C-alpha cells in the first residue's frame, strides 16, 4: 500500500517538494551541510575493492551549532540528517519564502531530496514532528526552559494554531454528512501516522483498534443496546448481498440499509469506511471523502507556495474530488473486479455495483515534482491491481 504523508494538522505539506520547506527547516538543513566535516567518521575499507566515485552517502551528524534548531538535535539527530548538499542547494533556491510559522511535519526528505518525492513516503522520524517531540517532552520544558525563552512566539503561535485547526476540523467535520466517530479519532492519528508503518503494528490489528476506539467502559452498556438491534440486523443483512462489514454496522446499531464500503487512499495506510447509503449523489460523497481524507488540505499544501496559504488551508477553495483539476482521482472497484472512475454511471447503478473505493493520486503535474517522468496510476483500471497472469505477461 502506497503511503503518502498526509499533512495533518493543517500544516505543511509533505509532498516532498523541497520548495515547501520552511525557513526553519532549510536553516537546519543548511547548517547540517556546513558541518559536513565530521572529523571522527572512520573510513571503512572496501574489502572487495568496490568503490564509488564521489559517493555522498555521508550521514550527517548533529549540527554542532547552537542554533535554535540545533538544540533539539540531540534528541533528533537523525531527523535532520540526510539531505544531499547538491539537491538542497538547488531546491532551496527555488523554495518559497516561508513565514515564521513553522512546519508541522518535518517531512524529512532523506531519500527524497533527489527529484520528486511522493509525499514524504519513507518519511523518517519525519512523522515525529519536531514540534510534537518538543511539546511532548516535559524534560525539555522544565530544565531546559531556555528553549522556551528562545522562541516563545514560535511555540505559542504553534500551539494556538494547532488548537484552532483542531477546533476548525472538529466543527467542520461534524457538519460533514456521514461523519462517524472514527473521523475524530483519525484526527488524532494524523501526526504519528505521518510516519509510514510506525509504530510497527499490523494493519489487521490497527483496524481492530480503530473499531475499539469507543471506550471500553461504556461498551458494556452500548453493547447491550446494540445487541438487541444486532440480532434483528443479522436476519436482514443476510439478504443484503451487496453489504459489507456486517459487524461494523451492527456495532454501531445503524439503520438496516447502510452500505459500508472500504475507502483507501494512496498514501494513507489505514483505510476508512464510508456509508454510501447515506449519500444521494456523487457530490455529497465526494464532499465527505474530501473531508475524511483531508484531500483539500493535502492538495492545498501541495500546490501552495507559501506557508500562509498552507496555514490558512481553508481559505483557498480547494478543487473538489471529482473535478478534473483535482490532484486526486476517485475510483471504485465494481462487481467484476474492474476499477472504474467514479461518476460515469447513474448513482443507483453505482451503488449496486460498487465494492470498494480508492482515491488515487493523479500524475503530479505543473512542474511541482521536477524530474518525475512516470505515472504510476493510469486513470483507467490500475494494472498494479492485477497479478501479471492477467496482464498476459
Amino acid at each position: 500500500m502506497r503511503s503518502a504523508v498526509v499533512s495533518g494538522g493543517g500544516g505543511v505539506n509533505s509532498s516532498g517538494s523541497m520548495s515547501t520547506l520552511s525557513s526553519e527547516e532549510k536553516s537546519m538543513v543548511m547548517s547540517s551541510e556546513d558541518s559536513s566535516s565530521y572529523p571522527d567518521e572512520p573510513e571503512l575499507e572496501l574489502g572487495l575493492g568496490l568503490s564509488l566515485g564521489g559517493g555522498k552517502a555521508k550521514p550527517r551528524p548533529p549540527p554542532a551549532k547552537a542554533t535554535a534548531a540545533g538544540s533539539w538535535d540531540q534528541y533528533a539527530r537523525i531527523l535532520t540528517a540526510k539531505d544531499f548538499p547538491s539537491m538542497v542547494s538547488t531546491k532551496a533556491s527555488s523554495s518559497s519564502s516561508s513565514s515564521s510559522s513553522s512546519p508541522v511535519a518535518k517531512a524529512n526528505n532523506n531519500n527524497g531530496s533527489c527529484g520528486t518525492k511522493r509525499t514524504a513516503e519513507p518519511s523518517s522520524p519525519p512523522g515525529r514532528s519536531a514540534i510534537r517531540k518538543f511539546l511532548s517532552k516535559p524534560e525539555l520544558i522544565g530544565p531546559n526552559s531556555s528553549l522556551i525563552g528562545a522562541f516563545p512566539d514560535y511555540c505559542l503561535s504553534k500551539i494556538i494554531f494547532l488548537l484552532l485547526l483542531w477546533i476548525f476540523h472538529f466543527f467542520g467535520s461534524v457538519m460533514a454528512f456521514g461523519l462517524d466517530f472514527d473521523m475524530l479519532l483519525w484526527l488524532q492519528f494524523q501526526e504519528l501516522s505521518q510516519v509510514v508503518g510506525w509504530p510497527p503494528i499490523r494493519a489487521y490489528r490497527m483496524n481492530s483498534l480503530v473499531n475499539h476506539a469507543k471506550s471500553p467502559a461504556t461498551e458494556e452498556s452500548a453493547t447491550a443496546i446494540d445487541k438487541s438491534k444486532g440480532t434483528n440486523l443479522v436476519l436482514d443483512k443476510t439478504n443484503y448481498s451487496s453489504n459489507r462489514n456486517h459487524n461494523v454496522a451492527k456495532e454501531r446499531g445503524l439503520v438496516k440499509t447502510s452500505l459500508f464500503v472500504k475507502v483507501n487512499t494512496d498514501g494513507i495506510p489505514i483505510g476508512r469506511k464510508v456509508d454510501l447509503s447515506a449519500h444521494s449523489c456523487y457530490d455529497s460523497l465526494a464532499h465527505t471523502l474530501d473531508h475524511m481524507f483531508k484531500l483539500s488540505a493535502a492538495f492545498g499544501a501541495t500546490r501552495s507556495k507559501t506557508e500562509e496559504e498552507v496555514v490558512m488551508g481553508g481559505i483557498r477553495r480547494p478543487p473538489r474530488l471529482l473535478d478534473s483539476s483535482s490532484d486526486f482521482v476517485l475510483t471504485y472497484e465494481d462487481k467484476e473486479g474492474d476499477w472504474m472512475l467514479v461518476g460515469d454511471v447513474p448513482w443507483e447503478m453505482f451503488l449496486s455495483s460498487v465494492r470498494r473505493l480508492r482515491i488515487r493520486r493523479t500524475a503530479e503535474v505543473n512542474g511541482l515534482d521536477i524530474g518525475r517522468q512516470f505515472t504510476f496510476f493510469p486513470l483507467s483500471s490500475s494494472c498494479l491491481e492485477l497479478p501479471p497472469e492477467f496482464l498476459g505477461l
Partner: protein
Amino acid sequence: MAYSFPEEVLEHVFSFLSSDRDRNAVSLVCKSWYEIERWCRRRVFIGNCYAVSPDIVIRRFPEVRALEMKGKPHFADFNLVPEGWGAYVHPWIRAMSEAYPLLEEIKLKRMVVTDESLELIARSFKNFKVLVLSSCEGFTTDGLASIAANCRNLRELDLRESEVEDLSGHWLSHFPDNCTSLVSLNMSCLGSEVSFSALERLVARCPNLRTLRLNRAVPLEKLPNLLHRAPQLVELGTGAYSADIRSDIFSNLAEAFSVCKQLKGLSGFWDVVPAFLPAMYSVCSGITSLNLSYATIQSPDLVKLVSQCRNLQRLWVLDYIEDSGLEALAASCKDLQELRVFPSDPFGAEPNVALTEQGLVSVSEGCPKLQSVLYFCRQMSNAALVTIARNRPEMIRFRLCIIEPQAPDYLTLEPLDTGFGAIVENCKELRRLSMTGLLTDKVFEYIGNHAKKLEMLSIAFAGDSDLGLHHVLSGCKSLRKLEIRDCPFGDKALLANAAKLETMRSLWMSSCSVSFGACKLLGQKMPRLNVEVIDERGPPDSRPESCPVEKLYVYRTVAERRADMPGFVWMMDGDKALAFS
C-alpha cells in the same frame, strides 16, 4: 562400498530426518545419498519465494507432499512494501498442479493468493489436506468455497490474519455433508457472518476437530451450541465476547465451557463484556495459551482472569493490563514463556495506561521460563534493560517497541546502547531482536561482538553512521534476516560486506542513505543476489547516482530474474539495459 545398503534401507533411515538442515547435510555426503534423499523428501520449506523457482524445486524434489513458503518481507506487515510488489503464488500452484498430484499441504505467509489459485488447488490435488494462509491477501470467500466444496479430505483450513475479500458467509455452507475430516478451522479474520446452522452441523460431524477459531460475527450466546458439539476442542477462538447481560446466557456459557476439558488455548475476545469472563473460569487451570490482544478490558478484570491461569505459557494482551497487572501475572504464572503486550492507543500523544518498563521488569523477575517478549511501551531505561537481561539470560526473542522513535533513556536521557548491549551480552541464545529508542553506533558494536546466535534483527531510527551497519554485518555470524528503516546507513558498509549478504536470506533497507550507484554496483558484482530497488518516484536513473533509493531489498537467489516486477521495482544486475525495463 557404495552398494552396501540397499536404497530402501537408506530411505527408511532418512525418513526419520525431519529437519531440513539434517536432510541437506545428508544430501551432501555422496551422489547416491543425494539421489536417495531427493526422492524421499516430502516437505519443502522456502523462506523466500523468489530465492528459487518452481522448476528448480520440482526438478530436485519430485515427490513433495508439503510446501511451506514465505513471500513478502516482514516489513510488508507495516505497509512499507507497496501493493503490487509481488509474491504471487499462482505460478507455484500451476507448476505443482502438474508435478505434485499428491500434494497434501500448502502453507503460505505474506503471499498473494487469488481465487484462481484456490480453485486450482481444489481441482488438482485429490488428497489435499492442509491449507494455511497466514497474512495473505488477494482472494475472496469464493475461493474458500471451492476449497470447502472440493477438498474431500480437508483437515486444516487456517486463514490467520489474511485479508480476505468478504463477499458473503456462504462459503462455509459449501462443505459437503460427508466432510468429517476437519481438525482445524481458523476463520477469525473474516467479517461476514456464516450460516450458523451450517457451522453447527460441520462442527458436529467432525469428531477430530481440535482447533476452532471463530470470527467476530459469531454471537456469544450461540457459542455453547458449538462447544457442546465439540467438547474435545483444544483451541478455541471465540467470536465477539459480548451479549445481553442475562443469567441464562451466562449459565449456558459456563456450562458449555466446563464440558471442554481439553481446552488449552483461547483467543478471540472481541468486544469483551467483563461480566461474562467468569464463565470461562472452569477451563483456566488448563489454559496454556491466551490471546487477549483484542480484549479491551481493564486491568482488574484482566488480572482476575489471568491469575486463574496458573499454567499459562503464552499471553498476548493489550497494555490495559498495566504494570500492576503484569506484576500479578509474574506472581501467578510461573510457567510463562511468551509475553506480548500491544498498545491500545498507539497514536495517542500521552500514555493512556499505566504501563511502563516496570511491568516488563516484574515479569522478567517473576517468570523463570520467559524466553520470548514483544513489548510496546512509552518509556524505557538502560537500568531496566540491564535488569531484564540479567534476570533472563535464556531469552530467545526480544522485541521492544518504544512508541516514540528515538526515545532516550527516560531517566538519564542517554541512548539505550547500554541496555540493549546488556541484552545481547547476557542472552547468549538470542535469536531475534528488535530495537527502538535512541541508539548510537555503540549498540551495533555490542551486537556485532556478542550476538553470535542472532538470526533476525530489526532496526528503526537508530545508529549514526555506516559503522553501525558494518558492525552488524561483520559480527553477527548467524544473521539471516536484517531489516532496517530510517537509519543513516549508506553505501560503504553495504559494499564492504557484500559477501555477507549471500549468507543471509534477505536484507531490507528503507529510508536509509544507500545510493543508487551503490545498488547498481552491488547488483553487478554479486550475481547470486537479487538487488531490488523499490522506488515510487520514477526510474532511478532519472536522478543522480548518488541519490539514495527509497527502499532496497536484497536477497540471495538461484532463480532467474523474476518476471513479475511492477513498475516501481528495478532489478540491479549486470545488464544495465535490462535493469530498467
